[in-house]
């Protein structure tokens, strides 16, 4: 069943068009990578999916329902996003940040109960952030902050997880750990994952499908081998690359020709 379905979406900031006639269908429990050059509309697409931006025309359906019709608190139970970076003006502890992920599931006067704390604890365990639960969020390194934000998104218990270049600040070990976690959640909890990345090899290795955006258009969508071709990369990024196969997985591997 398709969990995300975009139909002829157009979107522009003021007069600058960002998305032009984008349509796509994502099935439940898929891992999808979104790639494309700067300004191609990757982040905008994520924001349209989680309903913080609405398309000027066309429809974005989440679970078969138009994002305009979703109350904010409801959509936050279904879709979680890990932003690139957040700036808080007052300092909070890392654990408090993760606890905020429980917001959509709590009513106004309620405090988090044992179950909420357990979920938060698990989310922090999975992201290897328990060690600095009691440190101030703004004193952590960029990679540590990113992992806390990932934990917060997991604490939302979403069906769809959107990641905006979340692996950029992670070191190799945490990158591998994180990608393994995504695959595990994808298998055990049918989590649908969409991640934006500039690392084309990472996308090719870990995504079942790849969306290649170019100038606000859905330039190519499909299996890694279909999208990651030398011709596509040349057209979209204007660089010459060599595509061969990863010796371990057989998936496409890209090498820049210098």
């Amino acid at each position, binding site marked *: 069943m398709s969990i995300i379905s975009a139909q002829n979406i157009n979107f522009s900031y003021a007069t600058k068009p960002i998305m032009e006639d984008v349509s796509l269908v994502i099935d439940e429990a898929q891992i999808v990578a979104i790639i494309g050059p700067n300004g191609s509309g990757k982040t905008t697409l994520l924001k349209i999916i*989680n309903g*913080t931006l609405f398309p000027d025309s066309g429809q974005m359906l989440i679970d078969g329902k138009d994002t305009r019709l979703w*109350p*904010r*608190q*409801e*959509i*936050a*139970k279904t879709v*979680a*996003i890990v*932003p690139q970076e*957040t*700036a*808080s*003006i*007052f*300092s*909070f*502890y890392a654990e*408090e*940040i993760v606890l*905020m*992920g429980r*917001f*959509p599931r*709590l009513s*106004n*006067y309620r*405090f988090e109960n044992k179950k909420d704390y357990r979920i938060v604890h698990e989310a922090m365990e999975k992201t290897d952030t328990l060690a600095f639960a009691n440190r101030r969020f703004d004193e952590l390194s960029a990679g540590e902050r990113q992992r806390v934000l990932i934990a917060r998104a997991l604490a*939302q218990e979403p069906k769809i997880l959107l990641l905006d270049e979340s692996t950029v600040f992670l070191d190799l070990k945490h990158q591998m750990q994180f990608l393994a976690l995504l695959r595990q959640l994808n298998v055990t909890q049918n989590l649908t994952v969409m991640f934006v990345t500039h690392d084309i090899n990472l996308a090719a290795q870990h995504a079942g499908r790849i969306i290649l955006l170019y100038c606000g258009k859905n330039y190519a969508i499909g299996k890694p081998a279909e999208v990651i071709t030398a011709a596509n990369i040349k057209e979209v990024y204007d660089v010459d690359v060599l595509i061969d196969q990863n010796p371990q997985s057989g998936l496409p591997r890209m090498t820049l020709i210098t």
Partner: protein
Amino acid sequence: MFVLFLAIGLISLCVGSVHIDLINVLKSLVNAFTGTISLSPQEELILFSVRLPRIIFAGIVGASLSLGGVVFQAMLRNPLADPYVLGISGGSALGAIAGIIIGASSFYLGIPLLAFCGALATVFLVFVVAGGTRGPLLDNSLLLSGVVVNAFFSAAILFFLSIVNSLELHSITFWLMGDLSRASFKEISLAAICLFTGFLIIYAQARKLNLIVQGEETALHLGVNIERTKQLLLIVTSLITAVAVSMAGIIGFIGIMVPHMMRLVFGSDHRLLLPVSALFGASFLVIADTLARLVLAPAELPVGVITALCGAPYFIFLLKRKSL
């Protein structure tokens, strides 16, 4: 944990009051604990008709201003915001001055009412200038238009100050620096009801405030209906601040200082920050007002002088210690 913090807040409130009682003991040789039975009628009058309402009133005003500070600092995501940023001080001052000049003080609630109208009119003006009627409220435009309107009103206030006679000048100056001595029991209960309802409404938004502090985008991502929340908070907070200011005058520094002090001690979670700030703000103003009564006894200082005298150095200390 919450219970613990609440208890600490309550204790701080008691300490404030007990402190006063102790000073009373020294000052008028009345033991306030056993005093209720052994007091002379005169002393009883002083204690229950003058001091008690005044202390309660100081508590209410202190709590209102501190709450206002917490909410505006979070909502505008600016650590330098205070309850007056949206022009409430300037507006109510202008209203009060107009009242003093036309002699509204002879009517029941005359000056507070005018001050209150002035405050609300100003908030509305700021809101319109910031473009709040047209589209989403941007914090910066709200903040800037508040600053601009306040500056304009200060000029107007200075103008009035230079044309009034000396008697009016005295009462205006006293009003401008904050004066807790005028409130009657009726006014106090009115302010108490406003504060209490306001607090309940604001407290329901506490977790939303936590998220708003993380950035509006994040709040939106995590399911906060941000425009509605901001409008609600703006209205409720302006109301309780306007009520406090219109009755007590402008008492500076409490609203900006108390939230920061409490954040240093209790962290930034608004579910704690709101109640402890209200309680501490209340105790702080009670202490400040007591000092204001004592320093030049039997004459009085405006309480605003004390809060500003304590507040300004503390603020510099805070700025030096860490960049807020």
